[in-house]
């Protein structure tokens, strides 16, 4: 967001804000402890709105749930913006001082009257208006989102649409107001911080910036490739083209976690050399030529991770890893040594100190301080700096320090996998409280809440498609089909279905999903596929009876 990828606010601010919009986030189940902070805010009087196709358990807490159609977020956001502008609730003083490109944005959202948004999203215009006004009038307001925004073919546009709303109302850069992507995995934020994204070096320093690169080259005594790399979807495209033949996978399970699983398996299977470093013998590891057993990062090794509020915190070794499994740092250094580079045997702290020497936003975070302060929020440029509770305070300085924040006009685009007579049901995916991603970790404990995979549909659709609550049925998309138990769930309206990716060995949900990806972020549109549902029962009165 405006340069550095991280949530702008702290959890604490969510407790002390006046309006919280959960947009495409079922935090109650996916980020339960963050939701504790949300509820503290709610109990203190904050209004909570939930934008979600399903009436999730998070949405049940909301003062208003807006049950939009999948993939119509931009229509909703733009209509809110238009309404805010027309009602004179835009923060013009902030816009003029701290932003650019407002005029183009205004012209774009002008094409989204409430009636259009009602038509496209399904949410009554009056409700959209009320939420828009409440958000704009609030003294403090937060927008928090998760994969409901980002697992779309136009993920970045979705995010920009939300950022626009914050810029329009000045709800960013102040205590209690902000924009917060909730990270789905414990160190997604840290991975980005450390440069595990195609275009950045550690500390969000642009790999294509020669000055930044030079700093690293001096420190590392090597040449850093001057061009950005591929993101995951581009890697699969490169595999398809034959440009990518060797893959080193650390702690991922793309054989099961990628959309359009059949294609993923096919491409991974065609690699010349696949190395998998993991704590498990995952499906991907079983396809690998070399498996490097790793220690579990969160309990068998030392290091740091970064949370959704940019808090860098220490992980510590509590257990000896199993025989033969090694720490990631050790494995990587061993590989480097065999490739002819002796990096020695650094401790996690030594590696971290190197990060601190190269990444200004981490410089002040010694292990000692991380310990003392219970983690530190970046940026923390020196050892006297307390860390940063919220970002972009500079936008409120007069004049603004640094570049102004640009509006980015974006347009509504429907999901790629269109609904049709043949595939009339919109399938969206997500997580359940007690499970995580492909279940390789959560499968290890016995959850009383767990009941395997099931396809949630409305009771009305159950009747329409002749499938009873609890019975096995076939769900098909344009890419494949699975057999799955049906569950009637009032959270889904007619025409909407929900599944998770937690049980890929039993129910390969990703056979159904589409790998239409966002060109900017590389995220696939897990949230929107078109399916149909058929009973497996032999029709009554058929000869076989």
């Amino acid at each position, binding site marked *: 967001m405006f340069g550095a990828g991280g949530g702008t606010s702290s959890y604490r601010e969510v407790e002390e804000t006046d309006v919280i919009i959960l947009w495409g986030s079922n935090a*109650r189940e996916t980020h339960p402890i963050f939701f504790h902070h949300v509820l503290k805010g709610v109990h203190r009087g904050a209004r909570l709105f939930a934008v979600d196709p399903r009436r999730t358990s998070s949405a049940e807490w*909301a003062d208003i749930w807006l*049950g939009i159609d999948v993939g119509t977020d931009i229509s909703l956001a733009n209509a809110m913006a238009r309404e805010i502008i027309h009602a004179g609730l835009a923060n013009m003083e902030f816009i003029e001082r701290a932003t650019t490109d407002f005029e183009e944005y205004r012209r774009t959202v002008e094409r989204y009257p409430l009636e259009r948004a009602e038509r496209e999203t*399904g*949410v009554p215009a009056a*409700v959209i208006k009320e939420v828009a006004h409440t958000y704009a009038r609030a003294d403090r307001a937060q927008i928090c989102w998760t994969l409901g925004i980002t697992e779309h073919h136009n993920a970045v546009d979705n995010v920009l649409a939300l950022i626009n709303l914050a810029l329009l109302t000045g709800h960013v850069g102040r205590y209690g107001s902000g924009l917060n992507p909730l990270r789905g995995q414990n160190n997604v934020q840290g991975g980005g911080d450390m440069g595990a994204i195609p275009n950045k070096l550690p500390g969000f320093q642009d790999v294509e910036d020669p000055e930044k690169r030079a700093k690293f080259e001096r420190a590392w005594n090597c040449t850093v490739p001057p061009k950005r790399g591929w993101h995951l979807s581009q890697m699969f495209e490169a595999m398809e083209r034959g440009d990518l033949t060797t893959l080193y996978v650390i702690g991922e399970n793309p054989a099961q976690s990628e959309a359009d699983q059949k294609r993923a398996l096919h491409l991974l299977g065609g690699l010349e050399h696949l190395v998998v470093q993991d704590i498990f013998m995952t499906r991907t590891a079983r396809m690998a030529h070399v498996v490097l057993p790793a220690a579990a990062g969160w309990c068998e090794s030392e290091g740091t991770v970064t949370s959704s509020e940019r808090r860098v915190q220490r992980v510590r070794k509590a257990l000896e890893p199993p025989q033969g499994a090694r720490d990631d740092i050790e494995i990587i250094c061993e590989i480097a040594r065999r490739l002819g580079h002796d990096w020695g045997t650094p401790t996690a702290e030594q590696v971290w100190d190197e990060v601190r020497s190269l990444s200004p936003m981490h410089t002040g975070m010694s292990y000692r301080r991380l310990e003392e302060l219970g983690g530190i929020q970046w940026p923390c440029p020196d050892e006297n700096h307390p860390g940063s509770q919220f970002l972009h305070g500079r936008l409120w300085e007069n004049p603004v320090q640094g570049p102004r924040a640009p509006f980015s006009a974006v347009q509504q685009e429907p999901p790629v996998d269109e609904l049709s007579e043949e595939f009339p049901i919109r399938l969206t995916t997500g997580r359940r409280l007690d499970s995580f991603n492909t279940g390789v970790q959560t499968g290890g404990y016995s959850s009383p809440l767990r009941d395997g995979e099931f396809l949630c549909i409305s009771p009305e659709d159950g009747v329409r498609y002749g499938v009873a609550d609890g019975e096995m049925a076939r769900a098909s998309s344009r890419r494949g089909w699975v057999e799955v138990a049906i569950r009637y769930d009032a959270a889904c309206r007619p025409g909407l279905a929900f599944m998770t990716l937690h049980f890929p060995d039993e129910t390969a949900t990703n056979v159904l999903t589409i790998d239409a990806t966002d060109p900017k972020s590389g995220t696939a549109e897990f949230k929107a596929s078109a399916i149909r549902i058929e009973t497996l029962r032999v029709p009554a009165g058929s000869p076989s009876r």
Partner: protein
Amino acid sequence: MDIKVAGPPASAEEMAAVDELLGPAQSGWQGGTQSPRDQRVAFGGRSARSQRHLLLPALHAIQDRIGWISEGALGYLCARLTIPPADAYGVASGYALLSLEPRPPLTVHVCDDIACLGSGAERLGRELEQRLGPEGKPARPSSGSATWLRGPCLGLCDRAPAALVQQAGVPSRRFETGLAPVSSDEIVALVEGRLSRLEGPQSIPQAGDPGLRLLRRIGVVDPEDLDSYRAAGGYSALRRAFELEPDGVIREVTDSKLLGRGGAAFPTGRKWEAVAKSTVRPRYLVCNADESEPGTFKDRVVMEADPFAVVEAMTIAGYAAGCEKGYLYVRGEYPLARRRIEHAIRQATDRGLLGLDILGRGVSFDIEVRRGGGAYICGEETALFNSIEGKRGEPRNKPPFPVQSGLFGKPTLVNNVETLINILDIVVDGGRAFAATGTADSTGTRLFCLSGAVRRPGLYEVPMGTTLRQLIDLAGGFRGKLQALLLGGAAGNFVTEAQFDLPLTFEATRAAGVTLGSGVVMAFDESVDLQAIVLRIARFFRDESCGQCVPCRVGTVRQEEALIRLVSGRVIGSRERETALLADVNQAMRDASICGLGQTAGSAVESAIRLGLFQPNGGSRR
């Protein structure tokens, strides 16, 4: 909020019971059927959660219709009101009049508390066991349609022994009534469907005495006719209050030196002023009509016989203290009082004496009646607030006091019925005139509930400072030879004849180490097993403890156990050791309990022991 309602579905009858109270569901998300709009928008936040205060009325609605509250019924109610089922269960299970297990639609609650115990309740219970079978089971002749239960004081002590009859069903079939005095013949006839009888006459032995203030309209006005009340001077106080304006009313109340009649004897004027001065809105008035102190029936008589006076007094209090809304919380065992008050409120509202723009003075005030569920503790003001709010009837720690943070966390003026009806004369005659009656520190008159071995039991009004002996003389003296006298209620003390010349004032009783309490004067002659009476008091407190704080929750149990050991002779160590243990228990309850219930749960027991009423041969045996 994301509540989970599992369990079996409610029956149509159960749903109808809830809907009868709440009206049809607003949306498919709250127990109704899903509309297309519901699939796009839902309001599950603050507005949904704000219905919690309807929990107890909704529980009553089910109990009234079905006779008990099933898992399915509770689940439906929870979906309607957005209340977690566990919370609702926790609340419901704290009320004795609600049943969470199947119970026949006709229930006869037979009082076996102290007043009735002194008037044959034990024999009545034995007879019912023989004729109907054990309590709590379907009564033998009823083919499953009736049951009977023993229970605590029903506030009909002047006519003991007493019973409360509750017939569940659709509105046209259900009824509730007190029966006193009651015999096993009548109860059996009722169970067999051969009898339905309304409550007996009021016992106002002083009726017609021109010196009465609080009771002067009782037996004179028709409690169901506003015109009759007005003909007797009703609503002149409200007019006068409007002339005085709020400050003037509060000044008169302050000048009257009226002390609260609920037990704490706090200056009423100061309380009113504190609420009036608050800048927080809204503010509430609560009339505490949950008198549940065994032996007490004064507020019941007032509400049954002079309900408009209560309504008028509440209106004045609400006006003076700037309260937008009043609640009258009446104990669940008082069906007639509740009906009379509700009727009076309806009539007053119809006639512009309540509601918007009262008497054209631009003043708005409404009164809502809330009904208790069988819990002595809800007479404690903060437990009462919790009960209205739909929470468990557990007292809150004070401070903050109700005038700062009371009902719904807002400044709240809480007075009991007797305190409030004093206001009428104070406003009309002026505070100084009021203060001319009684003593310097205890002004006005006081209501006393005389029961047991006196010749004319009933409700009496005497000036503060009247002695106990004068009061007893007024009631015609004792029947039989007095064994002991209980003053102030179960939370009061046993007194002896040596204390009969004590003036009945706050200051004199305090100095003597006793209390006026709720005005109970209960006499026991020598035919009564006094140890059984003391044990019943101990049982009462164990049953009525809310269970929140340790001293009262466990202390009331240890007190009852020790008393039983003393009665049965199976003492641990010696009798002296047991009485020392009782003293230890009592001191901890008195010093460390959260509320007045726990603090006084050992006082009557202690006084009985101190007076030697609990010696091996102390209590006489019949």
